[in-house]
């Protein structure tokens, strides 16, 4: 069977910027940074105080009875965003479609909050037993399982874990299955919930978290700001989407992966450049056709100059005509969910013709010399856009999107 073109027909999101796409995209497109004092743990015990948390979150608004107890926060986020994406796409699941739908989600750390609470019981409170649901709540595939149960999906379903690239790798896998005709629909994205004391302490020890805010590509950037949440989308063959008169947000056109094989935390230029090139080739897109890149842009000392150099290496002089923004400046770095939230942002950007800015922007680092769309959004109708995700350990994944045909 010839490769099929793949349409995005539904999107869902829950993150610091909002609990649904309208709210989150509304905030992100205006350049509002949803970063503030961490409330889910006692941050006076941590060296950094700010994060991008989902505020006023009440699981009982989303899950009836004791069901919320079966899901760690990261899995709850996955289900919430998947519900929005499926409802948005207007999918009615027949038994045949349930057989032929895939669920692939990214997640970096599993149920960290659940795991932390188990350790507190065991080691701090010196209890002899722990909660019976720790195993099903902590497994990194828990989010995927609950999404399949939510919609009765029986097709190929699994979790992908590649640290901060997890979601892009997941979306790429789902894309390939739909494109090759292995499934007729996919629900894909990712989720993460890292605001647990043990996890925050681990990030503190790595010394990559900013004490103030996230200023990607700026000379005075001091590191990343952790975020949480989920992004989800519905993928289906373009022809099928047209046939049923579905709203088409954009086309997922290509996917490129690479490994640095270099260092467990320091990035290279060549690895990300290779992934960008592969995504362009896979999508059959020329550099001239791209005018927006949603950057990985973590605001760490290592990432931003390396990512800038990688973009320059691939795009050459054409790089000066790109708009490149890091929306992590607003929704934080949601780790295994980062790619999914940023993919939804990129899709909405193509759909609405608005390039979201890099918020909190002061003055560019001399080693970062692209147009980062500082602080204010820009009206533009890109033909195509990329969303970059690079990870600790050098596992890179880049998605290429085309505006709705």
């Amino acid at each position: 069977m010839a490769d099929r073109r793949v349409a995005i027909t539904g999107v869902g999101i829950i993150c610091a910027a909002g609990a649904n796409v309208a709210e989150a995209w509304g905030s992100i497109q205006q350049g509002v940074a949803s970063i503030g004092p961490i409330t889910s743990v006692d941050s006076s015990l941590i060296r950094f105080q700010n994060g991008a948390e989902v505020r006023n979150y009440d699981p009982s608004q989303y899950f009836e009875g004791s069901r919320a107890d079966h899901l760690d926060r990261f899995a709850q986020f996955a289900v919430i965003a998947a519900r929005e994406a499926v409802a948005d796409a207007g999918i009615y699941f027949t038994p045949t479609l349930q057989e032929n739908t895939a669920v692939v989600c990214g997640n970096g750390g599993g149920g960290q909050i659940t795991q932390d609470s188990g350790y507190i019981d065991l080691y701090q409170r010196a209890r002899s037993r722990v909660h019976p649901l720790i195993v099903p709540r902590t497994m990194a595939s828990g989010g995927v399982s609950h999404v399949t149960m939510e919609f009765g999906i029986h097709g190929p379903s699994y979790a992908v874990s590649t640290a901060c690239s997890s979601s892009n790798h997941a979306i790429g896998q789902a894309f390939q299955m739909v494109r090759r005709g292995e499934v007729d629909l996919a629900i894909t994205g990712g989720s993460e919930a890292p605001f647990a004391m043990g996890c925050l302490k681990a990030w503190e020890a790595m010394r990559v978290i900013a004490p103030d805010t996230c200023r990607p590509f700026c000379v005075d950037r001091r590191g990343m700001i952790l975020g949480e949440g989920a992004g989800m989308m519905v993928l289906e063959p373009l022809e099928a989407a047209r046939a049923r008169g579905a709203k088409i947000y954009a086309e997922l056109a290509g996917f490129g992966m690479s490994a640095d094989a270099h260092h467990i935390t320091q990035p290279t230029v060549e690895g990300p450049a290779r992934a960008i090139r592969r995504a362009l080739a896979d999508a059959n897109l020329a550099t001239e056709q791209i005018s927006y890149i949603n950057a990985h842009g973590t605001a760490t000392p290592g990432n931003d100059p390396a990512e800038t150099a990688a973009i320059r290496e691939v795009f050459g002089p054409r790089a000066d005509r790109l708009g490149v923004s890091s929306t992590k400046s607003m929704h934080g770095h949601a780790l295994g969910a980062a790619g999914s939230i940023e993919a939804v942002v990129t899709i909405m950007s193509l759909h609405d013709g608005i390039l979201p800015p890099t918020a909190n922007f002061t003055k560019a680092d001399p080693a970062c010399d692209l147009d980062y769309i500082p602080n204010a959004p820009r009206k533009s109708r890109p033909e195509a856009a990329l969303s970059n995700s690079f990870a600790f350990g050098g596992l890179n994944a880049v998605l290429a999107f085309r505006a709705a045909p």
Partner: protein
Amino acid sequence: MPDSAVEEKVIATLASVKRIPVEQIKLDSSLLDLGVDSLDTFTLLFELESKFNISIPDDEARTIRTVSDIVAGVQRILDANKDGSTLGSTTAPAS
């Protein structure tokens, strides 16, 4: 604690983290030349924080290039703690 004791302890800690002989480490040795990468540095700072019972701020940590930078930094934090200043206390001010 007199300077030489701080120096000795810093060098011993670095030697143990990097698993190299103490003799190989001089005050003016650059971390780069000793093959100490960013991950080794994080581990080294973590060990120093435990050994000296101090907290090394991230911004301070980023400026370290040589062994003497570390010795001076640790000394500064120890002195500040003695003076009752908050520099190097376990919590950083929110900003």
